[in-house]
């Protein structure tokens, strides 16, 4: 392998945890999530605090599931979409675990898993949690408009997933292993429409996926599932078109976490789900369980992020995208 694709040895997914809100639990993947809540405010005084509760409860649930104490975990690499990632920072206030914050917008989950995997394979760490959270109501206010404003959502808009997903990576062999990764580049083709996140991120996803196969020498049908993070339905089509132009065709094993998590027809979510927890909750809930049951053996997860802030879009900056690819495989 060459370029920014590299193999990872001796890193395993010990377990995962996912906590999702009401709308996500009504979606097609609802039954795969560990915990679903009926009230997305969780009895807190603000949606920001609710998002933190989601994140805390995912990590706590993960610790319970694996019967580890906080002392067994060497590091938490976490992120979210709130200002200065206060979601993750304030979450880790509750735990006696070292913390490193990560931010790559909605691609944060991949950044965190790749960093954790490299740390573990260095031999200096043996158990790291990587987690992300997002919340519809905090993202709406952060990037768009007040909740009660009578605005029409454009057909291109996406619905931020209210959830938290956490995975425990460790050097103790278990069924699912992290095998390889491709680091993404910031790619900007000049899209300025903040409502069209799919189009902002599609070029970055196409570039990362193309380089992953070119640099690893694998072909797309090597994987049972290639899942981008949150391109949405239209964004996924755009991405497939871009990658086809470079001579690579993605088949039926391609899907998008944002398109999988909601039922687009009945749930009125525009092009599908988005948010930092979109890929982490779909991986923790659905993909990991399908890998444990043997239904999926090799999965390439490509979380995608749109790199913008309210200020940068107001100042007329175009919105670049980023995507990192991580390959998970079931140990034979």
């Amino acid at each position, binding site marked *: 392998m060459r370029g920014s694709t590299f193999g990872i040895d001796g890193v395993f997914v010990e377990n995962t945890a996912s906590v999702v809100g009401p709308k996500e639990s009504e979606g097609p993947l609802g039954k795969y999530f560990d915990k679903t809540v009926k009230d997305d405010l969780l009895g807190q005084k603000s949606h920001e605090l609710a998002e933190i509760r989601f994140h805390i409860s995912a990590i706590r649930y993960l610790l319970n599931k694996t019967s580890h104490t906080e002392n067994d975990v060497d590091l938490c690499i976490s992120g979210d979409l709130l200002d200065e990632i206060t979601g993750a920072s304030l979450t880790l206030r509750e735990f006696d675990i070292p913390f490193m914050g990560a931010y790559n917008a909605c691609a944060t989950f991949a950044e965190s898993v790749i960093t954790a995997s490299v740390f573990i394979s260095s031999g200096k760490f043996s158990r790291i949690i990587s987690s992300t959270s997002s919340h519809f109501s905090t993202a709406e206010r952060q990037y768009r408009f*007040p909740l009660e404003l009578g605005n029409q959502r454009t057909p291109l808009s996406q619905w931020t997933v209210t959830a938290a997903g956490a995975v425990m990576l460790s050097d103790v062999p278990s069924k699912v292993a992290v095998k390889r990764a491709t680091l993404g580049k910031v790619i900007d083709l*000049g899209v300025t429409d903040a409502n069209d996140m799919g*189009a902002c991120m599609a070029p970055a996803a196409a570039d990362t996926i193309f380089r992953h196969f070119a640099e690893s020498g694998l072909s797309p049908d090597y994987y049972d599932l290639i899942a981008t993070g949150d391109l949405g339905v239209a964004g996924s089509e755009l991405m497939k078109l871009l990658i086809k132009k470079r001579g690579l065709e993605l088949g039926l094993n391609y899907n998008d976490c944002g398109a999988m998590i909601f039922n687009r027809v009945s749930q009125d979510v525009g092009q599908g789900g988005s948010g930092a927890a979109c890929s982490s909750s779909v991986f923790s809930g659905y993909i990991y369980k399908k890998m444990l049951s043997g239904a999926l053996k090799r999965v390439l997860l490509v979380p995608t992020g749109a790199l913008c802030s309210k200020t940068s879009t107001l100042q007329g900056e*175009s919105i670049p995208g980023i995507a990192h690819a991580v390959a998970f495989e079931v140990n034979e």
Partner: protein
Amino acid sequence: MNAPDKEYLALIRERMPKSRHFATMFRAFWTGGLICCIGEALTLFYSEVAKVSVEDDVSSLTTITLILITAILTGFGIYDKIGAYAGAGSIVPITGFANSVVSSAIEHKREGVVLGLCSNMFQVAGPVIVFGISSSILVGIIVLIFKGAFI
């Protein structure tokens, strides 16, 4: 910053789904017309039933009533659902202006009454007040200069 990739932007325009023009325009038309008719009914009520004689007072009372109705609907989380259906039909009437002020006030109350609710009340609608008052003063000055044309 990279130069925009014209080929890609053209691809987006060609491939990405568009707004359903006819349906959204029809909804905006009838809902907007209906809101104005509610205003007309209020005007009739204040002038004919409540016997308010000054025309300007009638229109002020109508405006205030519409603002009050909007504020209540916004507070109960109903106006955003109307807006999702109506689009411009519920933005262009004065009720849309009231909704943008009330929704911003509600959204930011958790950062405190003074620095949250009050400072952010005109987050969306502030430009309307600024442009409205500034342009009216400009008009006033123009009238002073060209007085003859306006008498």
